[in-house]
């Protein structure tokens, strides 16, 4: 069983330019392990200080947001195509532009 994983350009600095891998992962957690094994440099960028996958990174399976499919409970099927896409936002910041504090109340 194999799934095709497409990585965004934003990752390529940490993947030696590779934009695609094949994985035998059964679920999202296994897939993350696979990606991090293949690209060890990516790990510190992919996860925050608590080891959680950063919240702006989204996973899609065959055009469907994996959160609609059960997230880590979803079992990949042979031939699934997994897209990894960071959110693109443009509003205000969480670390404040002015006071520099995370979760500040001034902006």
């Amino acid at each position, binding site marked *: 069983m194999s799934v095709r994983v*497409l990585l*965004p*350009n*934003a*990752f390529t*600095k940490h993947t030696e330019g590779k934009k695609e891998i094949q994985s035998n992962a059964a679920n999202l957690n296994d897939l993350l392990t696979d990606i991090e094994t293949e690209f060890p440099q990516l790990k510190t*960028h*992919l996860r*925050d200080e608590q080891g959680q996958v*950063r*919240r*702006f*990174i*989204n996973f*899609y399976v065959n*055009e469907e*947001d994996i*959160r*609609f499919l059960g997230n880590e409970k979803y079992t990949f099927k042979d031939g699934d195509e997994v*897209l990894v*896409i*960071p*959110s*693109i*936002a*443009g*509003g*205000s*910041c*969480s*670390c404040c*532009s*002015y006071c*520099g504090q995370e*979760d500040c*109340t*001034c*902006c």
Partner: protein
Amino acid sequence: MAIAYELQCRECGKRYENAPLSICEACFSPLEVQCDLEAARKDFTREKIAQGPDSMWRYKALLPVPEEYVGPTPSGWTPLLRAPRLAKRIGANNLYIKNDAVCTPTLSFKDRVVSVALAAAQTFGFDTVGCSSTGNLANAVAAHAARLGFKTYILVPADLEPAKILNTQVYGAKLVRIDGNYDHVNRLCSQIADRYNWGFVNVNLRPYYAEGSKTVGYEIAEQLGWRLPDNIVCPMAGGSLITKIKKAFKELVELGLVEDKEVRFFGAQATGCSPISVAVKTGADHIEPQKPNTIARSLAIGNPADGVYAARAIRNSGGWAEDVSDVEIVSAIQELAETEGVFTETAGGVTTAVTARLYAHGRIKPDELTVSVITGNGLKTTDALAGVYEVEEPVRPRLTDFEAYFERQKATLGIEELEAIAGGASVR
């Protein structure tokens, strides 16, 4: 002079030179523009702004465009209307409407963001631009790109309102209908922007694009006589506008143009697509994506990019978010048109209905100075009103026929309307 703005990661703070880039390469979080307020201080005074053009470019000193840039499309500087008749209807005493239904050239606030995004596209040397859109952005990109001479690819959900499709194609833009909802379209655009060297205004140019929304906030403050309102009620799709109005107010305070004041921000969504409203109501620090099902297609973004930031901005301000049904949206479109002569699209119906509810629930007090932000024009979504008004039989062009018609009308009117006729339209 050094350019007085640059990109910065909103999460880890890493700084970047200006480039068509929207994702931090260190933590994959969104980038935003940081303008150098100190550099802008000398040009961003009440006097200099007043001498500027009657468009959003009067605030150029705080927009991420080169100093010598001359905006070729005079968007913005839309009316801030006192709304006494709507206010009376919904129990308010001090209500204003920021009317971007008449923002030019394409009759929505998206003309503001596109003005800034395409200035950036020119700076970066793109020859092709595009966007993913729920309609208004498509119209704006197509029109501005035509004027600036860009080639244009615009991707929209296939079920978009016919008027919004026509209002894009007429400018010569290549419109690509995608068999999916906005979130599918947006995702595809992220991949296309990775593959092709195109300037997508809301993907790789998004940090610049988003800054254009600040001009709504600058204008509200200036049009109120350089003061801030008590409350802002703002529609939410991706969630960017509400945070940028807040950022604009903050900048005005920093520069001493207005007195500091706690402004409360209220977000408006349709119940059929309410991920940000739900997050505010439940106190969640994340957005649960939804599959949109509402007539307010311009707000139908189930996985809003700025949702987390919008929810946080609302909560930190002491505001709230509400969502309303499609039936309420249609009624509110009619109510705003009937009371204030402003015909808005479905998003404006959402904002108006939510404004009414906020007063009804006591979240906004009648005397507080409140601005309801209307972002688009009703001529683009006339299908939302399909079947609302019956087509009457034509009257023969004879006075006796009209009199008979008028008698039939009177028979169907209520007491209040009859009294109005008796007092006002006497027959000679």
